[in-house]
């Protein structure tokens, strides 16, 4: 039965799909991994059974609607922040579609993510609130935690449009061991000509790799890895290693590229290392989705949840964090 393994193969080489593929399993897994729009574009123009073609056309149509909504949200943020005269750098999905990159084609886009200078955070927060954004989390512990340790403001949601914005001042939490250089990210950003900017190609790949491994529990990892594949294919890897080292992200970038090569055939330089024991675990986790759209291998998934917290926070804080989270659960449910 088709699942994430078939999905990765289909993205890598859509012409290798056979007409008797388990299409239902493939599309279900792609929907669950939020890759159905990307898959639909990869298969565009190739012969597929008629009912499959209809579902794929629908997925492309849905991705186009998501693209338009994301660009409008970026535009509304631009209008709100323009008077501040600060650099505003789009990140992730919105950046890919705003810059017209292959990584944006068919991509699912959720929240709007932007990067601004840290000393402009207060002004940005006030300008967004004046323009109709509101706090999502009224909880004081969460709020203090975000402000003190995270790499972003607590999420804001627009009261009319119901869309979320994440305002980052760097690309990893301050608690994480690795410390990317946010000033360099902003200094190297490429203007889009409308007052907004996107990260430079190397920084985009660094961010995508940091996001893949250091942020979250690898949930949605296959989509992040597909982003990395598309970015590397479009931009190449010239200067990438030096830039990654500058941000303290040499290991995650090399590791991400290894996985992209293993799953999608991404071109990468010789000597970027061989798979280690962790890579095998990561690969299992990346492909942990069956043709019913169900997550599989729950033990691996739990291991990654703990690991993802461990990477973001020093151990004593981790204990405090988990304890507060655990103690709060009965009250909130």
């Amino acid at each position, binding site marked *: 039965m088709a699942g994430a393994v078939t999905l990765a193969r289909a993205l890598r080489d859509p012409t290798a799909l056979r007409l008797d593929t388990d299409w*239902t399993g493939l599309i279900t897994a792609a*929907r669950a991994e939020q890759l159905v729009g990307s898959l639909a574009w990869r298969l565009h123009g190739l012969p597929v059974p008629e009912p499959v073609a209809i*579902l794929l056309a629908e997925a492309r149509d*849905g991705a186009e*609607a998501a693209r338009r909504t994301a660009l409008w949200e970026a535009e509304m943020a631009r209008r709100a922040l323009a008077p501040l005269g600060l650099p505003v750098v789009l990140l992730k999905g919105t950046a890919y579609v705003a810059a017209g990159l292959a990584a944006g084609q068919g991509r699912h886009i959720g929240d709007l993510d932007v990067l601004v200078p840290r000393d402009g955070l207060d002004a940005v927060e006030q300008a967004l609130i004046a323009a109709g954004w509101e706090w999502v989390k009224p909880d004081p512990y969460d709020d203090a935690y975000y402000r003190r340790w995270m790499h972003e403001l607590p999420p804001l949601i627009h009261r009319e449009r119901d869309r979320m914005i994440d305002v980052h001042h760097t690309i990893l939490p301050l608690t994480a061991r690795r410390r990317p250089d946010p000033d360099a990210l902003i200094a190297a950003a490429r203007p889009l000509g409308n007052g907004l900017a996107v990260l430079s190609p190397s920084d985009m790949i660094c961010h995508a790799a940091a996001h893949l491994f250091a942020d979250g529990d690898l949930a949605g990892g296959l989509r992040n890895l597909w982003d990395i594949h598309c970015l590397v294919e479009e931009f190449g890897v010239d200067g990438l290693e030096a830039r990654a080292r500058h941000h303290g992200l040499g290991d995650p970038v090399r590791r991400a590229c290894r996985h992209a090569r293993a799953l999608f055939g991404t071109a990468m330089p010789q000597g970027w290392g061989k798979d280690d024991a962790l890579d095998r675990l990561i690969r299992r986790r990346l492909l942990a989705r069956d043709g*019913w759209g*169900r997550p599989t291998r729950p033990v691996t998934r739990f291991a990654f949840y703990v690991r993802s917290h461990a990477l973001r926070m020093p151990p004593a804080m981790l204990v405090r964090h988990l304890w507060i989270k655990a103690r709060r659960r009965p009250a909130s449910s």
Partner: protein
Amino acid sequence: MRHALSLRIGPFGFRIGSDWRAPIETLADLYADYPRPELPDYTVRLEALRPWRRWIRPAMAVSGDYMLPDAAPLPLAQALLAAEMGMNLQLALGARRFLLLHASAVERDGRALLMSGESGAGKSTLATLLAARGWRFMGDEFALIEPETGLAWPLPRLISLKNDGVSAAARVWPGARFGPLLHDTPKGTIRHLVPDATAIAAMDEPVQPAVLLFPRFGAAAAVRAVPPGEAFVRLTQASTNYVALGEAGFAALTALIRGVPAYAVDYPDGETAIAQVEALWPEP
């Protein structure tokens, strides 16, 4: 999954998987006369909340291609409702080929009567009563408007009836087939009715909408023409995917409102409502 079933209802194919055998057997029995899809559009999963909850206080999580993050689980005894809710959710959040209106629909003279209303307005019961009087039942949950043509497509799912609706339907449909009686569901006591053979046989025949009703049960009989502006606002609120469809949704909805007269109908009982509908229905 351990147990599974695929079925097609009008233009949509569903694949339903379950950790338990019983829900699939119930669905297979009630949907016995429905065709199988060439390829299902959507997957619905009925899963045990935790592995051991397959046996101990079985609790069923409803999920699928599209889901709500905080959907409450249901007891195993309400599996049929869970499956129906799962299918609703896929259409409400996923469908893009049709503008979905939360409405029941019946057909006569090759034209459709759409009845849009909140839960409790009686749209399922009215559709059932009209079907017993010779109208073709098209659906009791979603009216499917095709943007390119303006046609209403049938979606003759099992009809979900509440207390009074069950007895009313049993009176006018003596031979009707019902699903199990479901007590204490989030929607109260409900029971599912299998649509008649005509409705199932004609599930691939769309028709042009002719009249739009906003029925309301429990008030003194009254009929009021609804101006286009009000109808537009009501239907944007009654549509699950108007926003998602963007320009196509706007075009489909404004075309529908332009082409079809709309009425708000208050009715104290089914007999009165049928008389009101007959009076409003334009004879060919």
